[in-house]
């Protein structure tokens, strides 16, 4: 119950944040403007609208998740509101989980708004035929952001927002280079120590590239084999990884002097 109260408060605060609203508005405008590329053939046009839409949602979602995540705890400490909260019968882990849940709800609402505009645009351009398969892409984006938020959450319990921004962004970039780290971890001509290092990077850094499923969604000719299994595995991956990160965050936050 306490977690839900904190989540609700976090959501309310986040929705009032101007910077997040600006990200959202810019994203909505970009999705709407993508239909202006109307001078291509029908197939090209849809490809561009879908890729732009999914891309804009992913980028805007990433910024929203990072900006939200890096400020979750430091903002409370800076405003000293955390002392008031923790002086009440609220455990630290409840505070953290509430904050995390609040940020997830914010992301979810933002994604829902962008998705509604995106689907409307695609439906309009697709001769009023909705393409609900795109929701699978949105689902993957959500779980990618879920994972990204948990990364930002871990760093937010012991770093400043600026440092956290760079740390989270760095993890995101490394985690998006999955093809590269995988290839380097398997390169037989490499030094075993170097290979081992890349193996660690590939398997221990959260692999955000797993969630990039735009290609099969925008090109009907490309299919994911065992699609349901693939999506399920990614969702489980995100949940397990986020659980580990939240445990680390809780353990660190519990021992932090305030």
């Amino acid at each position: 119950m306490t977690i839900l109260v904190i989540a609700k408060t976090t959501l309310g605060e986040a929705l009032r944040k101007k910077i997040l609203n600006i990200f959202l508005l810019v994203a909505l405008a970009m999705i709407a403007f993508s239909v202006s590329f109307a001078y291509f053939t029908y197939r090209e046009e849809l490809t561009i609208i879908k890729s732009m839409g999914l891309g804009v949602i992913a980028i805007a979602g990433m910024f929203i998740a990072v900006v939200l995540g890096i400020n979750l705890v430091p903002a409370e400490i800076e405003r000293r509101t955390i002392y008031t909260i923790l002086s009440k019968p609220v455990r630290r882990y409840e505070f953290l989980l509430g904050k995390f849940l609040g940020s997830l709800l914010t992301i979810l609402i933002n994604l829902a708004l962008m998705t509604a505009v995106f689907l409307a645009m695609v439906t309009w351009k697709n001769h009023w035929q909705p393409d609900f398969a795109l929701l699978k892409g949105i689902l993957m984006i959500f779980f990618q952001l879920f994972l990204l938020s948990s990364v930002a959450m871990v760093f937010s319990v012991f770093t400043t927002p600026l440092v956290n921004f760079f740390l989270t962004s760095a993890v995101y970039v490394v985690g998006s280079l999955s093809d590269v780290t995988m290839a380097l971890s398997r390169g037989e001509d490499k030094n075993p120590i170097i290979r081992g290092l890349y193996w660690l990077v590939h398997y221990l850094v959260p692999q955000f590239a797993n969630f990039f499923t735009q290609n099969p969604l925008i090109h009907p000719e490309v299919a994911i084999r065992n699609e349901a299994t693939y999506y399920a595995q990614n969702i489980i991956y995100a949940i397990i990884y986020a659980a580990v990160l939240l445990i680390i965050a809780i353990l660190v936050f519990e021992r932090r002097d305030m």
Partner: protein
Amino acid sequence: MKRSTRITLIIIALALVPAIVKLQATIDPQRAQFQPGKGVSSVVTQVGNNPVVLPSQFVAGTIIGFREVVAGLLWVRANDFFHSGNYEAIVPLTRTITWLDPHQIEVYRTGAWHLAYNFVDSSARADYRYLAPAIKFLEEGVDNNPGVSDVEFDLGYVLYSLKAQDFDKALYWISRAAEEKDAMYPMKRQIAHHYERAGRIDDAVRQWERCVEEGRAAFRKNPQDFKAEDHFLVSKRNLDMMLIRRVMRADLSKRRIDAGFEAHVKRLGPRIFQISGTANLPDGAKIDLMLLDADYREPDMESFTWQVDPNVTAVADIGIHGIYVENGRFERKYDLSKDVKQYPFKKDRYVLTLTFNPRTAADYIQDGIGWSGEGLADQRYLDTPTPGLRKLRKVIYLDRKDIL
């Protein structure tokens, strides 16, 4: 937090790490199966004098996984170049786009079309040296998009048939396209047309019969299927026409026309010459011209490069661009002096070939000489490269001084 809770949480976290590793190991091969980046030989960064520099924001976009968005934006940019007629700028862009996202079908099709058709000299004559890269580009498109009929069809029709006039290869690719699930009726009809072009008349008749049956069956099944109705009607008309022609052209070999083919080349100035000649053929018959380095070899597709050899000269006026015959004569002036880059003439010897190929001739011309020149005769320049085909062909060897 109690110590025991703390230890329990640490144990849970550690226990979940192998699960993360295991899941990632399971996800990796599945992701590699559909994500872009496979099956593309290389990203070539220069075509002609146009180096490709991917702007940093695009590079950043591709690194963090927004390949499709970057590809889409680059294609929007390429479209601007297209509308401004800057075709040279489009080609390297198309290469970059298909590297970023090898499933952009239209980019493959448009890129290959630009390569084969839009690098032109001051007389709007396409640069023949770019035909091989165009073919290679579409072949790559086929490899990366198996089962997509449009790419295979363009390779067969737009490149091998219309441009290279290689009807056997055209037939292979068009037939492949027609077998795909997304194939359209016109692709199936093109098989018949290309059997005809390849001189396989009985096969063409059988294909028209198949098309007639296919269209009829589909239309009977669904009377609202107007594409099927159209397929049936067009195929039926063409089948009837073909059967009539087969009868009419049956004994052309017994009453052959002497073409009296002759051709001359006259130098008018540096890189300017005139081709003229006679051909006893109906008005509108086309004489193909190829002027190549004497040691010209078709590019080796295995060691393919986008850089065309700047030392190679290849002038090609074939198919609809051939020199037309009027009143038994043909003539065309070639002024290549304004296009030194496209026609460098750096070799010592050149081969000028003038050909009349009955298989590419219009129907009304074939009515007089047959599909493969059965009714065609010539005292000096009859060429029979393959059994059943009777072409007219004159080869003239030129020295560099004859042109420059």
